[in-house]
């Protein structure tokens, strides 16, 4: 009798862990028929994109094809004109009754995402350490010491622990961007959005930033959604590449397929233009 109870308990436990495993194996972030217009200009048209938890997906394509908008929508910096976006199956736009989320609900779900920008966007009046502890102490309510400890850990990860007390203006662009990556990571996001993070840097500095992203990709299980023009990097770090043109995904697949055997003429001409200049 006792053993039966125990057995059913284990069974229940197994079932529960399986469900949670199913969830983690499920979509990290999904875009469901998402459209976005600015005035009469349609930036995204009926976008369907599913990214698995832990997957590294890179969006490539010509300027103005809507790649950055995808990231800004995921970060709730923009609202879609139509469609829905879900993180771990939970809409970032509507509650269960289909009503728009309150700002508190939005803030709770936004916590799962972090973003790094093309222009770094470090706070110029704060030191490196202050940049890193501001969100943990105010958003997560961490004690200052604990937040500083965590910040130092991430600064070591990006190789800049010696710059704790520097101001952003005293750092090179590459260093600033590495700090920005650390600043996003201290909040432990499940999904990290990287928006052309090397576009404002010269090639040498871009290299050190990409090295940091490689480490993040290899050493954490964070879901990466990347917009970049660095094709070699995209090929190396991505599980999957999506090619954008005029607000639509025109082709997607593993890097090998996209870079070596692209099916669409538009993909071929885009890659030709990017790789030969």
């Amino acid at each position: 009798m006792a053993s039966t109870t125990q057995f059913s308990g284990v069974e229940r436990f197994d079932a529960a862990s399986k469900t949670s495993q199913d969830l983690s194996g499920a979509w990290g972030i999904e875009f469901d028929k998402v459209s976005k217009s600015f005035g009469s200009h349609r930036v995204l048209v009926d976008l369907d994109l599913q990214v698995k938890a832990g997957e590294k997906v890179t969006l490539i394509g010509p300027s103005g094809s809507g790649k950055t908008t995808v990231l800004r929508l995921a970060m709730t910096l923009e609202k879609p004109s139509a469609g829905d976006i879900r993180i771990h199956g939970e809409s970032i736009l509507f509650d269960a009754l289909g009503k728009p989320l309150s700002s508190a609900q939005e803030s709770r779900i936004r916590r799962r995402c972090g973003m790094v920008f093309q222009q770094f966007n470090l706070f110029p009046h704060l030191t490196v350490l202050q940049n890193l502890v501001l969100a943990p102490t105010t958003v997560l309510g961490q004690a200052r010491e604990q937040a500083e400890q965590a910040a130092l850990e991430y600064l070591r990860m990006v190789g800049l622990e010696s710059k704790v007390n520097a101001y952003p203006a005293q750092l090179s662009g590459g260093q600033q961007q590495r700090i920005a990556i650390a600043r996003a990571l201290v909040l432990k996001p499940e999904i990290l959005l990287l928006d052309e993070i090397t576009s404002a840097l010269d090639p040498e500095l871009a290299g050190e930033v990409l090295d940091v992203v490689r480490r993040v990709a290899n050493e954490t299980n964070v879901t990466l959604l990347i917009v970049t023009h660095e094709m070699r990097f995209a090929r190396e770090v991505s599980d999957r590449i999506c090619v954008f043109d005029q607000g639509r995904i025109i082709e997607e697949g593993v890097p090998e397929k996209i870079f070596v055997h692209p099916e669409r003429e538009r993909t071929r001409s885009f890659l030709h233009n990017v790789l030969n200049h």
Partner: protein
Amino acid sequence: MSWEWKFVWDMMPQLLLGVWYTIVVTVLSSVITLFGGLLLAILESVSTRIGRMFVRFWLELFRGIPVLVLLYFGFYVLPELGITLSGLAIGVLVLGFVYSAFCSGVYRGALITIPNGLRDACVALNLSPYTTWSKVLVPIMVRRAMPALANYVLMLFRSSSFLFALGVPVLLGEAQQVASQTYHFLEAYTVAGVFYLAINIPFVYLLHRLKVKHG
């Protein structure tokens, strides 16, 4: 017309009282100006259309009417409406309101020059609106606005002389009183002018330093 040092010496206590009142008025109304201007700029930025219209109206009111008119209104008209304040209080409030209207424009200008990317970063870090304003936007606004704000504080300091019209013993008021009692206009107004200038000079130096530091 001849310069008599003895009168200069005799009127010193009265003029120094004027210096003291001038400094008190300047400091008190500067506090209203610097905080009030910031508050108006933030209100204008975050409020709805109606709130923004109210702020606009407030700004035009205090920027559009001459200081002396506002002072007389506060001193002679407000008591008829049941609000009786001392000349000093009215003077400090009027100067504070007038210059906070000017300074809110300075703060607003500083706010506009903050790149949108920094606000995006605040959203991406999930900072609350309160934290975004108090820890990011306001400190940057204040830094950028500082040189222009110092300029307005300087103007406010000179405008404090208007308060003699309400009988507040600011430097000009005291000089006028001494002059009219003794008919030594030359000494009274010259020394008053020199005092104004002497207080001004450290301010100007500070302003120069700020401009060098904050561009």
